[in-house]
């Protein structure tokens, strides 16, 4: 489903975030990417989601070599991947409903279909009652769940989450991880980064450890 072969990523200014990373994630698998801050976790996830491009090596997602895709094809591929951002990336000028509806509006989905899908996604993350709330009125955990609802509203086969439990207390973090496990159970490929080793152990999923931009043994 997702295949990294000798992938390196250098940013402008010379920072080398990833070096010779080769990882394969099978369809329906749940994988946690662990490592310290600056280990390259976020970069790996962004490359898998087609948000950034590798400097060298190949990233293949859904059978497509992302490096060979043009900007438009890459954008269309992103529609099939749900991404939960570390900083949520919510739009504060519109309510919860419209934030979740954004990916559907982008694809030209019909109005009644948008309503159904958005409510289904918000119900799944337990925010159905708050669809008219503005993001600024939501708690950190609610904003996180809103971001998850936006990531799953297109019913993606791949869900990628960057530090989804980063700033949450233990109970909240557990609820979010349970949510991801429920997506995994219905066949969604889940790739997430975390520095919380205890949670990974509890989930019992495969773990890819990164250290200084390379896969640690």
């Amino acid at each position, binding site marked *: 489903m997702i295949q990294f072969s000798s992938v390196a990523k250098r940013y*402008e200014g010379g920072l080398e975030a990833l070096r010779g990373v080769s990882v394969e994630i099978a369809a329906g698998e749940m994988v946690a990417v662990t490592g310290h801050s600056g280990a390259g976790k976020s970069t790996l996830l962004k490359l898998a989601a087609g948000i*950034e491009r590798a400097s060298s090596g190949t990233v293949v997602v859904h059978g497509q070599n992302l490096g060979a895709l043009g900007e438009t094809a890459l954008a269309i591929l*992103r*529609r099939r991947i749900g*991404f939960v951002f570390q900083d949520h*990336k919510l739009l504060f000028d519109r309510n919860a409903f419209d934030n979740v509806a954004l990916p559907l*509006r*982008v694809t030209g989905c019909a109005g009644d279909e948008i309503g159904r899908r958005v409510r289904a996604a918000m119900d799944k993350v337990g925010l159905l009652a708050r669809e008219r709330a503005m993001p600024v009125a939501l708690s950190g955990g609610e904003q996180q769940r809103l971001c998850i609802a936006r990531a799953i509203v297109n019913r993606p086969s791949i869900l990628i989450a960057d530090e989804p439990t980063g700033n949450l207390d233990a109970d909240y973090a557990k609820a979010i991880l349970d949510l991801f496990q429920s997506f995994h159970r219905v066949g969604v490929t889940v790739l997430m980064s975390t520095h919380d080793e205890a949670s990974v152990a509890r989930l019992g999923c495969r773990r890819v450890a990164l250290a200084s931009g390379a896969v640690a043994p």
Partner: protein
Amino acid sequence: MMTWLRLHRHALADALRRLATQPLASLFSIVVLAVAITLPVLAAIALQSVGSVASSLETDPHVNVFLTLDATDEDARRIGDALRSNPEATSVKFVSRTQALAELKATTHLAELLDSLNGNPLPHAFTVRVRTTDAKKLDEARDAWSRLPKVDQVAADFEWSERLGKWIHFGNTLLTTIAVVLGAAVAFIVGHLIRLQVVSQGQEIEVSQLVGATASDVRRPFLYHGLTQGALAGAAAVGLAAGVSLWLGLQLRALTPNYAAEMKVVFLDPAWCLAVVGIAAALGLAGAWWAVGRELRQFAQAAR
């Protein structure tokens, strides 16, 4: 097809919503654009008005030949033949003294005065259009014609109108240049205003791209926004220019007495008004395209 239509409908609705949710900002933008567009439109109106005055002026080179008061119809015929035989004359028009008197009565308020006179004070006259404006050749023709018997006066008084014609031509060139420069200014103002809006929507553009919006998806609502804003500003500019022209027209009428009736403000015809709205909409579209293009390139750059 349905999806494509829906995307465009959404984009248009989005653009209108953007205009409506910030009524004051939208109004100011449209007013700024409208004022900028009004300037070249007014220049065009001035151009057209001056052109209409110019075309009503006699600027062709011609010479008036007045006969003595005692010249008979027979003399007139003989002189007419002589004038026509001159190689410099292209056409010769005879104005009989009775015709001249009738015209003078009809076009001035002197009818009563003229009636009180014994007989007709006006002579027979010829208007001769000449091929040349060369002073030497004209002088030769004038000399030859004034030596003809029963010719009283030969007046070549077109020089002033010719000079005026040249000034009007210069004015036209000047106004055209101003209109072009102002038109270019409008394009930049539109681009800049839309760029400001695009920058303020930078986050939305970024998030849309993250969740799978293509460059055209991002561009679409902004293009509709630019288009609508441009068209509204164009319509407002036509309205503004119409108001200014109407007011100037009234001022001009109060200023010029009725003998200068040809001095009036000539407003643009409907086709031109539509063209102004169309051009303004196109400028809005182009400005939006340019502004969004910059943001899109920045996103693509960041992904490298």
